């Protein structure tokens, strides 16, 4: 493979070649973030809101207060009554003056009255608006409360709606599947004695991953066994879930009764 005159360089060249490869490997290890980040959480949050039943009252529509009707009813000055022609100019003038004065007075009064009315109306309007807003707020709060209540109901699993038989069977099937998967991962040596029963509260994402650490509700009596089961739950992600989102809702928070030695 090598010529005679190349033998002198071969060791140095081989060393350099290996150095180059190690450099590249180091660069790859340093520059890439080889840990996988799971941005699943955000996605699931969006999906959660998708699943809300459409029968819920839409709350976002707030009654928009009507624009203030600006009442600028300027009373029209009354048309001057036709002055009867009187022969005497003086008298005529006097009368006219008197009339004018009267009219002006009247006008002033009317304008003031109109202003007052307008002011009153404006105030009334404002009050009305406030009242409407208050009403809207109350409505919104009510709707929110109702929504929260609904959500709570769903979350606690104590849904008043009776699930259909088919749903129940699917739920049972998947619960069994989840248990079977977890059971496969439990270190049985740690839960050897007897047939202890554990109860865990676990929250599940639609992907089958845990939304949080499993909460131990009822211990088996042995801390090692509890830890083993908890580790097994974490290790069996993703857990099998039904593809139907309506049934998934029941799995969002799951009360798992688990016997490792069954």
């Amino acid at each position, binding site marked *: 493979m*090598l*010529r005679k*005159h*190349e033998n002198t*360089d*071969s060791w*140095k*060249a*081989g060393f*350099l*070649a*290996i150095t*180059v*490869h190690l450099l*590249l490997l180091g660069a*790859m*290890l340093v520059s*890439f973030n*080889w*840990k*996988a*980040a*799971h941005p*699943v959480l955000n996605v699931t949050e969006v999906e959660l809101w998708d699943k809300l039943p459409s029968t819920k009252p839409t709350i976002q529509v707030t009654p928009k207060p009507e624009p203030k009707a600006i009442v600028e009813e300027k009373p029209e000055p009354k048309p001057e009554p036709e002055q009867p022609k009187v022969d005497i100019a003086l008298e005529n003038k006097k009368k006219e003056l008197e009339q004018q004065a009267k009219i002006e007075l009247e006008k002033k009064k009317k304008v003031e009255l109109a202003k007052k009315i307008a002011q009153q109306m404006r105030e009334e309007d404002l009050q009305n608006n406030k009242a409407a807003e208050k009403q809207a707020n109350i409505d919104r709060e009510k709707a929110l409360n109702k929504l929260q209540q609904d959500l709570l109901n769903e979350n606690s699993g104590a849904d008043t709606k009776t699930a259909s038989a088919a749903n129940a069977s699917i739920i049972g099937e998947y619960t069994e599947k989840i248990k079977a998967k977890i059971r496969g991962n439990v270190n049985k040596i740690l839960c050897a004695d007897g047939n202890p029963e554990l109860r865990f509260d676990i929250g599940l994402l639609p*992907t089958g*991953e*845990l939304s949080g650490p499993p909460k131990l509700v009822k211990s088996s009596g042995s801390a090692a066994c509890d830890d083993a089961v908890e580790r097994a739950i*974490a*290790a069996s*992600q993703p857990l099998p879930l039904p*593809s139907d989102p309506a049934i998934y809702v029941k799995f969002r928070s799951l009360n798992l009764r688990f016997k490792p030695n069954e």
Partner: protein
Amino acid sequence: MNAENDMSLLSLISGASLPVQLVMLILLMTSLFSWWYIFIKVATIKRAETESEDFENKFWSGGDLNKLYESVTAGRRKPQGMASIFEAGFKEFIRHKQQGRMEVSDVMEGSRRAMRAAYNRELDDLDAHLPFLASVGSVSPYIGLFGTVWGIMNSFRGLSSVAQATLSQVAPGIAEALIATAIGLFAAIPAVIAYNRFASSVDRLSVRYESFMEEFTNILQRKS
């Protein structure tokens, strides 16, 4: 979540299917060898250039050719590059001269042939390993691509067997498959660059040798 251990480089490689692993191994070996040859060739070509430079300086300094010949052949190691061409030509020339009663043109022809042979040997040494670099440069991307395609095929086949297809089910497979392409490219790019550089250096050296041969022939002709 088991995020820590599913994407490390080592687990990506060990999780790949056997053909992909084989492809990676082959590519790693070719890459190692091509870099090895690259460094060897850098050293040898550099040495050939400095040696021919030195020899030309000595040759054109106007010393006696016999003395130069002795100094070239005196060294323990075989003369190389231009010196070996000179040695071959001058040895042939002296032999013919010692035999006497030969035509000048025959003597010239003989020494020329000897120089040509030495030149070819030198050029062969200079050209060594260049074909290897050329084929690494052209073939290793394809090998890497083959590994990648194989890996992606596998990961998609696995995808078809699950009901709910998510990207995270294919992503590791594709990532591990793409490592093969990365290694292939890492082997190919330096090989191509090195091949082009070495080819041009060898060309320049061969032109230098040839012109030296012509000039030396003239000198010998004048001497005879």
